[in-house]
């Protein structure tokens, strides 16, 4: 408070009274939220409820086919959705009215999702080479064999980088490649970052290779709790206030509280990242930017993104603080304009999937693009 603020005692009393009135109001809102929270059990908070059946499994990696919600369009090849390993694929089906999966199914697409499973220390030696060249490739080949045609691959975040690499190594497997919030140029454009953008890129580039190797080797894998803490640190005030002011602001609205809890459930379910792959992800890609420089290798083969032959849709989030727009848009330098399309979604990293606006812009945009590809084919 300034000296002026110290003011007269009656001023202080007046301000104090007003502050107390506000506190009372805030308290009432908090209590309403607390009441609702107290009545909700963990089992009431359900995510990823769209029914699906496992059709393929290799080690812990599974591919599930969602049961159709309408007649499947036979002219569009199956879609395989591939999330990263820092979170779970359940994000794409968080709740019924905000489910990218449901929107794709309602459009008549044959939708599949790859689940990387729950890596333990027994999986610490799995490399990016294994993820791309064994698990992802085999899952794609299996789906291609089942459907009898090249498939549509949709990679999200880290999953997008893995999908882009496979698309460059084996273009014959794919009918199209869609990516969302996917880093390609890990250096990004730091001179033009807005405040809070690109921390992960800057922080990891400030680490030494041996720091990262040591950290991962000490734990075997990269602990989910560690990556969770890093993500929380990217938005310090939001992380500090979500359980107090954030909950209070929901003022006892049951639907909003359930939305909040579904997101919390997704965040809490953060798997460990296989150690060897995490070291490559941070050192080869984040620190050395090998993919962009054409120096990233998978099983001895260089990943040249110019070798991607199918149509590409690149979806990025304009307010993405985790994967800066510049790191995603760099893909355009590798793909001819005639086969490349972008959707810049006005939202954040997770908003691409969970916001109500995203259902039209992102899911709708993806469906339209897949249909237009089909016409052109």
């Amino acid at each position: 408070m300034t000296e002026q603020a110290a003011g007269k005692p009656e001023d202080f009393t007046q301000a104090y009274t007003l502050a107390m009135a506000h506190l009372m109001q805030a308290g009432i809102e908090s209590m309403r939220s607390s009441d609702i929270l107290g009545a909700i059990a963990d089992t009431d908070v359900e995510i990823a409820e769209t029914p699906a059946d496992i059709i393929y499994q290799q080690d812990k990696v599974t591919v599930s086919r969602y049961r159709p919600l309408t007649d499947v369009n036979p002219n569009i090849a199956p879609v395989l959705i591939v999330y990263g390993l820092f979170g779970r694929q359940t994000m794409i089906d968080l709740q019924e009215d905000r489910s990218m999966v449901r929107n794709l199914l309602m459009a008549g697409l044959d939708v599949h999702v790859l689940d990387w499973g729950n890596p333990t220390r027994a999986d610490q030696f799995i490399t990016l080479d294994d993820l791309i060249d064994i698990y992802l490739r085999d899952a794609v080949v299996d789906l291609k064999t089942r459907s009898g045609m090249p498939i549509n691959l949709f990679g999200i975040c880290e999953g997008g980088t893995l999908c882009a690499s496979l698309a460059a190594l084996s273009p014959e497997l794919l009918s199209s490649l869609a990516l969302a919030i996917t880093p390609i140029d890990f250096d990004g454009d730091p001179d033009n970052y807005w405040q809070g953008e690109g921390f992960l890129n800057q922080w990891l580039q400030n680490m030494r290779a041996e720091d990262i190797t040591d950290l991962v080797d000490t734990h075997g894998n990269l602990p989910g709790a560690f990556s969770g803490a890093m993500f929380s640190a990217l938005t310090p005030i939001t992380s500090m206030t979500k359980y107090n002011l954030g909950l209070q602001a929901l003022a006892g609205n049951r639907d909003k509280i359930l939305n909040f809890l579904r997101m919390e459930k997704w965040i809490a379910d953060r798997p460990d990242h296989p150690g060897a792959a995490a070291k490559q992800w941070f050192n080869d890609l984040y620190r050395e930017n090998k993919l962009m420089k054409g120096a990233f290798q998978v099983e001895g083969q260089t990943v040249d993104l110019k070798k991607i032959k199918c149509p590409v849709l690149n979806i990025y989030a304009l307010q993405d603080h985790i994967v800066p727009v510049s790191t995603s848009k760099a893909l355009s330098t590798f793909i001819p304009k005639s086969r490349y399309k972008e959707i810049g979604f006005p939202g954040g990293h997770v908003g691409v999937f969970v916001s109500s606006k995203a259902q039209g812009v992102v899911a709708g945009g993806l469906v339209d693009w897949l249909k237009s590809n089909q016409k052109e084919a």
Partner: protein
Amino acid sequence: MAENDFEKMMKLWASGSEAFMKAQADMVEKFGESIAPKPKDPFEESMEAWQNFIKSWAPGWDPSLFTKPGFGGSRDAYFAMFDTSTWATHAPDQLRSIFQSMTNIPKLADFYNPSPQLGAQWQEVLDFQQATQKFGTVMQSAWQRAYGRFSQKYSLDDLKSGDVKGALDAWLKAANEELLDIQSTQAFMDAQRAMIVATTQLTKRQAEWAESWAEKLQLPTRTEIDDLTKTVYELKKEIRNLKKELKGT
């Protein structure tokens, strides 16, 4: 000359000589001290160094406290010496040199000496404490700037309007901007890196201790299980490649 007088004279002469010799000795001693100080008693010297060292991280420490009932007034200072969180603040360099000397002891084949390991562990604890402190200092500067900005914008007069929510939002906005601002600075990134590195070293040391206990209790160690896991991983990969080769032919 009577015998008494002679004796008196002799005594006077003796005491005069003694006084002269003493004065001479004092003078020589003073002169000597001025050009080359007298070496202290080694025990006294090491005690003094020890006291200075203790006082450097526990300034309230009274060396004579053991002679006082109930630790006298220095009880808190005494216990403060054992509070490791204060060591890094007050005497990091002294501690580091002590731990360093523990770590550098040459290994003897038939003599069990855990002090090098302990020394290394304490150095790691010290690194962690210093890293945490430095990180805290960096973050505190951001909070201070946020408060400075907020208090310049908001006064009690503004709050009289009843817009407490506005004030709270302004505070959060200022804090958010300052925290985001600092998180992209080199000072923050270096402090963050030091903290991650220090935490990793401590975790690694814990794992080492756990392994040595596991060995003593005839339990499989993490290294042994990791070795096995790696063998299984490599075998699986080999089988997979062989299967693919067979399919190809």
